[in-house]
């Protein structure tokens, strides 16, 4: 019974989290300011505390991109890391106070892998949203 109850609560939380994606998207969207244009795509994933979402993106040389990554209803709940395809670490927001957005200026075009996970301090499960904008 205890296990069933735990499952039920987890499943319920997950469902509620999914519904919160809209709110999270609003939180995230405010970081794509008017000097950036959205790439027109909306990325999201439901995460439990120990899970990592993986995003793959191609970024073009000579362009500055803004990656905005959020979870829940406030900034700083999502940890994200950017790697190249060879898994060399380019950036992690954890060493920058869980910054909810960061800009990346590319000298050459390249493919990157972005990993995102919930900050364990925030706890629980949640909807992770990532938005990408490019500078005009």
């Amino acid at each position: 019974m205890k296990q069933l109850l735990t499952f039920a609560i987890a499943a319920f939380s997950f469902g509620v989290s999914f519904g919160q994606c809209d709110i999270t998207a609003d939180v995230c969207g405010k970081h794509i300011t008017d000097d950036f244009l959205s790439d027109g795509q909306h990325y999201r994933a439901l995460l439990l505390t120990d899970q990592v979402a993986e995003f793959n993106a191609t970024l073009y040389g000579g362009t500055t991109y803004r990656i905005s990554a959020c979870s829940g209803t406030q900034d700083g709940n999502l940890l994200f890391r950017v790697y190249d395809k060879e898994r060399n670490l380019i950036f992690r927001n954890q060493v920058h106070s869980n910054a909810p957005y960061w800009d990346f200026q590319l000298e050459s075009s390249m493919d990157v892998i972005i990993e995102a996970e919930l900050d364990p301090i925030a706890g629980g499960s949640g909807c992770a949203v990532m938005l990408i904008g490019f500078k005009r």
Partner: protein
Amino acid sequence: MNLLRFSSLLIALSVSVFITACGDGTEKPDTSGEVSNNNGANNGGNSNILKVGDKLFNLPSPLETAFLIEEVGGHFTEALLNPDVDPTKYTTKNAQAMNLGVYGADLGYSLIYNQSQNAWNLLETCKKLGGEIGISPSLYTSLMKRFQGNMENRDSLLIMVSQLNSLSDEYLKENESEDVSALILYGGWVESLYFTTQLTAQIPNPKLRARVGEQKNSLENLIGLMQQVNTGQLDDVVSELESLKTIFDQVEYTYEWVEPETNEGKHLTIIKSKSNVKISDAVLKEISLKITEIRNTIIATTT
């Protein structure tokens, strides 16, 4: 007893919410050993890595390509746009979605060159097609009101259109129309590559040429995306893209890691790694012919 009733109620409610959130809630096997569900997230299996919607595909925005075309000195060429301005000829959801992507790219291209009246007409076309595939008309209505008041302000119009694209994508994904979203991206990607290849024949610019070659990775993402949403109805699309990929396989790509520089105060990281794309004239021509064929198939598809 009360606890049992409460638990049963909670379980029923939870399962109901969960199923609602996740579509039909079914899980399908993944060749990577991971498990996915229809809400776009995978259970991580042993690795605890979630790949969003099996894989997450970022495709370049058609606006990025349009900016590049402007940067290299390309002029507005109306003949590059889909000549058919009657969206009612597209009667199936697939044809409507693909051509919404095509018209969306045409819209971005027109806006970059301040062709605001042309852009307005394309926006009306997009509204009609968007309505047909289930995008809330209110998204367009609101945008079009603001558009009318800013016809001469290119920057504002570009912001509005990019926001519209993002909101449309969000709306479709919220309504479990991932396949429609993918087809719109497909149409937009094809139209943008069509623009670029057509212009490489007129403007011998290395950046333009490289941009064609750089689509090699985007194409792989696009194929994966289409395969993910294909339940048989998109076999032709996947087949066409795989055929295009055999040509792109001849594009050479090299990459060298260089330590990036981060400026905390500016919230900025400069990625200094180097990449290079080599594409021969023959391969460029082959890509151009194939993408023209695919694009013409899309805009001629009515059912």
